[in-house]
């Protein structure tokens, strides 16, 4: 056993341990912390499986943005947590439930371990048209070419999520502001970090988007990083989030799906079909779409995290 293998096995046990701890945790806040750690460990697992794109996404979305969202939710729910515990079963039904879960998990594990190795895959086929598209990263080709439609619709789902969050505000606060208020004077480590990090973060994010065409990275990961920068600034209370009625905010939120859909429909006229890219121009078109998708993701995630508007526009 090499040292790498030993580390891999250790990582696997750590993931299982943290997962178990997260499930066993009694308080929501503890469970959320467990979940964030679990996400980061999972990102390492993806790295070890040579799935860098997935690792980046898992770290940025799975534990990063979702983590912030869950922590703020857990803090907000703390007062009402005891009340929620009344839907609790006695010991016998719990044993039945545990037995059922064990059976389901065992069946799942058995069929996964029983699968042929290597399993059925489209990876070689996905690489063939890469040159024609001018791309180097097969995952980007899947997301923006072969399954472009699914990607476009996923961005629409994000817009719907924003509408869902906003719709939780009161009628009086509609069109107003959400998130932390701005402070006149800000000091301390968070404010310092919020001034130091964003320039670096923005450059790294743009880099991730740009290299996404050929290497691991892309609109979602880059957009998530940008949104993290925005969140730091918001949480350090250097700036306030824009009012939800602001036109430019709404344009930014839908720019990704709208540009995607418009280019898809232009394909009818220019490339012979919906979401077909004109021959020879595939790469610039794809990069164009990715830029707007990044913008959409970067605008959407902070709006989801800060929640519904709770005060009128000042």
């Amino acid at each position, binding site marked *: 056993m090499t040292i790498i293998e030993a580390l891999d096995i250790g990582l696997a046990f750590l993931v299982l341990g943290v997962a178990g701890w997260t499930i066993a945790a009694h308080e929501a806040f503890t469970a959320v912390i467990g979940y964030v750690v679990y996400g980061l460990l999972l990102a390492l697992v993806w790295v070890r499986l040579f799935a860098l794109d997935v690792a980046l996404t898992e770290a940025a979305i799975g534990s990063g943005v979702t983590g912030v969202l869950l922590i703020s939710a857990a803090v907000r729910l703390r007062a009402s947590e005891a009340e929620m515990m009344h839907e609790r079963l006695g010991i016998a039904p719990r044993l039945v439930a545990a037995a059922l879960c064990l059976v389901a998990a065992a069946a799942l594990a058995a069929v996964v371990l029983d699968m042929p190795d290597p*399993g059925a895959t489209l990876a070689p086929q996905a690489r063939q048209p890469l040159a024609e598209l001018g791309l180097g990263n097969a995952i980007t080709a899947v997301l923006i070419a072969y399954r472009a439609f699914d990607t476009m619709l996923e961005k629409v789902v994000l817009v719907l999520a924003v509408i869902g969050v906003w719709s939780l505000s009161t*009628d009086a606060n509609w069109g107003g502001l959400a998130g932390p208020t701005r402070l006149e004077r800000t000091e301390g480590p968070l404010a310092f970090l919020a001034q130091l990090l964003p320039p670096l973060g923005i450059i790294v994010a743009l880099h991730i988007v740009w290299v996404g065409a050929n290497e691991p990275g892309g609109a979602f990961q880059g957009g998530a990083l940008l949104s993290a920068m925005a969140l730091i600034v918001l949480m350090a209370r250097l700036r306030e989030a824009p009012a939800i009625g602001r036109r430019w905010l709404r344009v930014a939120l*839908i720019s990704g799906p709208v540009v995607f859909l418009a280019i898809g429909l232009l394909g009818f006229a220019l490339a012979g079909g919906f979401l077909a890219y004109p021959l020879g121009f595939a790469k610039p078109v794809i990069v164009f779409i990715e830029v707007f998708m990044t913008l959409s993701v970067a605008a959407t995630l902070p709006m989801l995290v800060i929640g519904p508007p709770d005060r009128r526009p000042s």
Partner: protein
Amino acid sequence: MTSLLVWSLAVPIGGALLAFVVGGRRVHWFALATLPIGLAIAIAIAAALSRSSGPLLYLIGGWSPPLGVALRADWLSAIMMVITAVVICGIAAFACGDFISPRPAEARRPFAFWILLLALWSALNLVFLSGDLFTLYVALELLVFSAVPLVCLDGRAETLRAALRYLLFALLGSVLYLVGTGLLYGACGTLDIDLLAACLRPEPVTLVAASLMTAGLLAKTALFPLYLWLPAAHAGAPPAASAVLSALVVKGSFFVAVRLWFFVMPALPGEAATQVMSALAAAAIVFASLLALRQDRLKLLVAYSTLAQIGYIFLMFALAFDEGSGRMVQGSALVGGMMQAISHATAKAGMFMAAGMIYASLGHDRISELGGIARAAPLAALTFLLAGLALIGPPSSGVYLAKTLLLRAADNTGQWWWAGVLQVGGVLTSAYLILVVAHALAPMRRAPTPGHAAIPRLQQAAALALVLCSLVLGLVPWQPWLPLPVAMSGHGPLGLAALWSMLWPILIGVPVAYLLGRRGNRRPWRVALWLEDADRLLRQWPTAGASLVAVAVALAAAMFFGR
């Protein structure tokens, strides 16, 4: 012509995104402008399909499966799309009374409602058209994220709770569906429905995948016993939203289940699993109908009626199984199930709207105090009555056609017990309708709370139109689209036998309603109390979670050992 499939998705999505960015008090204009276009596209697709020799196919971006994704329109998609378009138009007309910003500024409820309505429409069209299991997953996500906020548009604490339950349980269902999809990709290296159908063999991995995906879809559809979210969500939403949720949203995940069982893996489930599905359906019909009798609020009664109707549309699974070939057959049982689905969609939309109008004119919807409603809101009361009749199934209605087809399938396959469930269901449906009618005919106890505005004419017309739609669905010449048995075209809809088939459930329903129905403070039968306890238990998280796993395990066991 096949590019229409794309336009049927792009038009509502485009409308929703435009409405989002332009906003303001005229959000509804975008929706109202989109409606006729979408309806025309759906009808054009159905017309094109009746002329075409096979399903309409569109390869997105020119990439053919397995690498790319395809849109396919077959007869199932076509009828569902047209009925969905009709119901959405009716609901939009009704919503014009409730969801137009009164002030010159943009308002929260109209903004959310109209955009979500359009998004929901595109999601449903995608469910009906998609030829790929992952695109179907995306469609289901679109559906959930546009449906959940509709539940809590009123912003009351109990509706927020209902919406959260719905969201979490539906997402649990999504996870199960997604895990199964991953397993199928690992087994076959494709997610295209036609390619998978050619590749899948009954082996452990595919059977586990099938049972997980089915359990997930049942959770999203709220088939018994996985319904913890439905009564509160459907009864608490504003009337127009309740109509969308009950009539259309639950049909989305039902449709995916049909695609999965009849098109992706017709040879996989085997007989025992189909019996499990129909047993759950039968339990839903009996249990939820009895509980409908026990409700004290009209909207809750309608919500439990939806639960029972979800049972009806799933009952066909055992009837569509062909013992000889060991496969699910796309024959009259499937047509019966789909006919039941579209009849329920139109009737239930009208019924929820009628319940909403009754609430608006009385200021409450307590069943025991419905007396005098026939005078206070005659058209709303009539619409409710007709919607109830449409669910029982007079000879011209879609439900009658559906029942005839299902009974015939039960007869042909020798499964008399499912025919019995259908008849019992008819009696119970009559019983809860009779209960409402009996209370409505009572004299008015006190004057209606003053200050309630008259119900807009448009709302009354929209609700009535949808219900009438359901009542004449049985007369539509379906032959160009549906694989109907030829003999069906000549069923005498006005014969004495047909009329009697509707009358006897009502006659038996009267004593059932008297014995089991909630009537004032009278001490109910002990059975009724047990039912209510069971209902409360099933609507708790731990029970619902355990039931979800139990359903998955039961389906997998049936698929493994029952073939």
